[in-house]
């Protein structure tokens, strides 16, 4: 794990050489303490070790190592094309669906490597829910959208109650309770995204992956979703990709900064990242000097 964390050496930081050296040492230290020793944020649930992803011959992720704590919101930020979505897709093996994607390294969910031969990706995805960048409700009724995962996973139970709970948790119940059997496509974009969140949490996953869930939404809908994510973290572990610095600062407990080339440059408590980042490049990125 320690050796895999090699990116600071290749970092082309030309201005402050000596500082960079100390930065590196510090950075590694920080990452470890953050992942393994800081108890207030709970046990580690997702643990990546030297994860690399290639699309054909292009390397999209380079030796990513990080540990995501349980019942927390972990934000992933970074410029476009740096591999944030790719990393998210590694966690629930959605990359398997891309013909020319290749993953290596170790990625453990609750201690078990999800790329082990005996792991069924379908079973894995039942434990790891996902919300996509663009709202993508099924062309079915709102009710059927929420029960989709339950039915596919063969979960029995009082569907009416589960649907109500999930929609309440997604802060959508009040708006749709009288039109549950109408098409989910008739909702507004923000409502559709909350429906997708309700759909993802209905089967009660352990981890919720969100890929820029608010990128297509207006400020009001965005703030609704942000409130929602804060609530969700009490029950689930949330890993969220976002392009919006303020959003990451507002809602996350931990933040990972990916920079171009598919490298994880810094991973620490959100407050630390935003107030006092170890790397100049991270600071530049956060303050909008590049990216």
């Amino acid at each position, binding site marked *: 794990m320690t050796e895999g964390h090699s990116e600071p050496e290749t970092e082309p930081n030309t201005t402050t050489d000596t500082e960079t050296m100390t930065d590196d040492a510090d950075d590694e230290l920080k990452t470890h303490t953050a992942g393994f020793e800081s108890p207030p944020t709970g046990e580690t649930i997702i643990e990546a070790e030297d994860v690399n992803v290639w699309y054909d011959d292009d390397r999209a992720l380079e030796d990513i190592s990080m540990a995501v704590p349980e019942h927390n919101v972990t934000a992933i930020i970074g410029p476009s094309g740096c591999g944030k979505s790719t990393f998210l897709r590694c966690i629930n093996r959605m990359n398997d669906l891309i*013909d020319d994607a290749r993953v290596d390294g170790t990625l453990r969910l609750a201690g078990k490597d999800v790329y082990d031969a005996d792991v069924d990706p379908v079973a894995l*995805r039942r434990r790891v829910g996902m919300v996509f960048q663009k709202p993508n409700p099924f062309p079915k009724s709102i009710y059927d959208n929420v029960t989709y*995962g339950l039915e596919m996973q063969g979960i029995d139970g009082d569907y009416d109650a589960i649907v109500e709970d999930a929609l309440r948790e997604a802060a959508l119940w009040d708006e749709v309770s009288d039109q549950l059997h109408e098409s989910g496509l008739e909702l507004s974009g923000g409502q559709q995204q909350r429906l997708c969140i309700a759909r993802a949490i209905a089967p009660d996953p352990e981890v919720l992956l969100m890929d820029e869930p608010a990128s297509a939404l207006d400020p009001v809908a965005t703030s609704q979703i942000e409130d929602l994510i804060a609530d969700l973290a009490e029950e689930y572990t949330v890993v969220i990709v976002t392009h919006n610095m303020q959003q990451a600062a507002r809602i996350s407990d931990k933040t990972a900064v990916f920079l171009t080339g598919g490298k994880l440059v810094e991973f620490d408590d959100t407050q630390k990242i935003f107030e006092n980042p170890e790397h100049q490049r991270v600071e530049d990125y956060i303050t909008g000097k590049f990216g």
Partner: protein
Amino acid sequence: MATEHADTTTAVSRTRGVVFRYVLLVATLSALASLGLLLANVAVDAFDPLSADPSWYLIYLCTLVVPSLLVGWGLRRHELLVGGIEALFVPIGGLFGAGALFLLFEVIPFNVWFAWAVGIAVPAAIWLLTTIAGTSGRVRAGLTLGVGAVALIGLPLPGVSTTGAVGLLTMGVPAYIQRRVYTIPNYYLTYLLTLAVPIALLVGHQLRKRVSFTAGLTGTGLVVIASLAVLFQTVVYTYVALVLVLLVLVPTAWYCYTQWHDHPADRLQFAFPVTVLIGAGLGRIAVWVLSISGPNSWVDLQFLQDAPTRYAESAGLNPALVGSLLLMVVVIATSFPLGVGAAVYLEEYAPDNGFTRLIQLNISNLAGVPSVVYGLLGLGLFINLGGMSGESISLFGQTITLQGMPTGSVLVGGMAISLLILPIVIISSQEAIRSVPESLRQASFGMGATRWQTVKHVVLPRSVPGILTGTILAVGRAVGETAPLIMVLAASYSSSPPAGLLDKATALPLQVYSWAFEPDPAFRHGVLAAGVVVMIVVLLVINSIAIIVRNKYEAKQQ
């Protein structure tokens, strides 16, 4: 100088543009005109409009054409005409359905139909009861399938008695009824049990969902009463009246009822079909009362009901119609599952490698192979078994004589045409499947669905309209296809309708083709043209079904 030059260039190119535009216009018009001329020619031959009394036209002009045009024009201004025309299509579609049913019954003996209907009723009843009782999906499916299989094919227990309840159990319901029940109800009762009861229940169920339980009961009751009421008329056979009531009256009433309720603003649109129907009825009565003779059309009921004869006057194409209908059944039953299955595999499962691309390329090429080749293929494959027919082979110590399928049967003809349209079905289904957004598949996989679940719950429901439209259009193409049929059917030309799938058959295009060589000009003009008209109508109906299916699903998915 320069500007002058530029001006000339502009002028020249503008003139060229104008010329080009008119050339295109002329090309379009002449294409349309030649098609129109061809169709008009056929229509004149088939309907012989000049043989009618001028006052016949006058009467229909006054009762039907002028009022319909006026009402239609008025409705158009309120944008209600399309709805009105659509309403007219419901009874017309019902009539076609009834016609197809009667043709089908020329092939299926009604005791067979009755026996199978009773057999199918058993699992249907189980399914209904378990649904009402709220049994879980898997138990319900298991019960229905299990009981259904026993009811339909029986338990294979050799050597037990074949009478009484044991016989019923071992033979299955259909076989038992056919062999042991000697008093089969007549046509009317058969239709009543097998058609009226399900339709009445369906209407009741829908009404109960829409309105209330009482409304549902009333609906069921109304259908039953209407079905019984036909006993008290003497104009047509009771079973004919019953089928008309069930397939024309009931759907029309249902359509009117739902439209009337769901679109109160559009109620005026019913003025159009009402005008047309009343106008046609009035005209008919007037013509009959004044005993004015209409055109001596070649296309009439007799033409549809009779077999071809040596005399043009009494010739008909009933066997060809039945043959084509059965061919269609075979074509749909074979090409639909194969084609859709192949498309789903290629789009959803096949890895993207050289082999898949090779297959893909060849499917596209096969779509362009001349249809005669498919006829040869059918002949060689199904009848001669690739030259192996009649030869003996030994398999596991037993000698088996290979036997190709009988020449000229409906099954072989249908399968040959299936081969012909299979590439088209595959390609259009693939296109429909490809149009399902990738984000929906991602959503489904992300929810922990397996690939099969994703296909079943997300991909197929979304692509069904496209798949159906493509398949129906391909079937339409198949109906008119002649070359493969000449190869596999012509040798066994038959002048009576086929009695089953393995019986010799003829088909519409073949029949039309054979009339073209009759020495009697009345055949070559009148009868031939009438055959063409029937074929075109069948094609139009098939294409309209495709359009309706598409519109309906598109409206639903908005």
